[in-house]
């Protein structure tokens, strides 16, 4: 019982990220509307970014902006600063995600201009007829 409780306290964040990923994944493959699919893709991306940021967390550590003079004279203890490497990788991922969203929305506008609808089944009907 005690072991289960510590397991829950240590891991409940990860379980919630998996739930968020499942919500986004379901929206990507289960919904018919193309804008809903795109929103689902964004939720999926955000959940993965959340997971990456959370593996850089250290309990009781400071944010990755250090005092320059103290660092130059004494050096930095690596356990006292949050791991900045996932932040860098995810910083670029967020900006790429907004670019992907922009291109996808442009293609959606083009599809609506061509077929007059954004529902997947109606578009498939119009293509086959």
């Amino acid at each position, binding site marked *: 019982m005690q072991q289960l409780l510590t397991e829950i306290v240590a891991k409940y964040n990860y379980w919630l990220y998996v739930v968020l990923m499942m*919500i986004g994944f379901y929206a990507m493959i289960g919904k018919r*509307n193309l804008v*809903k699919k795109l929103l689902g893709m964004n939720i999926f991306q*955000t959940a993965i970014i*959340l997971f990456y940021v959370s593996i850089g967390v250290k309990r009781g550590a400071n944010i990755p902006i250090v005092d320059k003079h103290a660092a130059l004279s004494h050096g930095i203890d690596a356990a006292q600063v*949050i791991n900045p490497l996932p932040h860098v990788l*995810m910083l670029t991922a*967020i900006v790429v995600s907004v670019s992907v969203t922009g291109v996808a929305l442009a293609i959606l506008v083009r599809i609506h201009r061509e077929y007059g609808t954004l*529902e997947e089944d109606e578009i498939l009907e119009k293509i086959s007829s």
Partner: protein
Amino acid sequence: MIWQLDQFVLLLVVICAVAVITVRDLLSAAVIFGVYSFLMCLLWAKMGAVDVAFTEATVGAGISTVLFIAAIFRTTRRSKD
């Protein structure tokens, strides 16, 4: 660290994510997605990732929502599911 606040924000994030994909009006979905992005930004600021939180507050909650609204304005607002 206030763990109650952390869990409350996590719960709100999941509720917002479910609301984004269930609501039928696409404009509402875009606005709720902005709220979702901002809650996510709060979560990251609490985790100590200040740069990522700043980027998400400007990009996710600002530009992304505006782009969605612009595209919905150009296409249609209704959705069947």
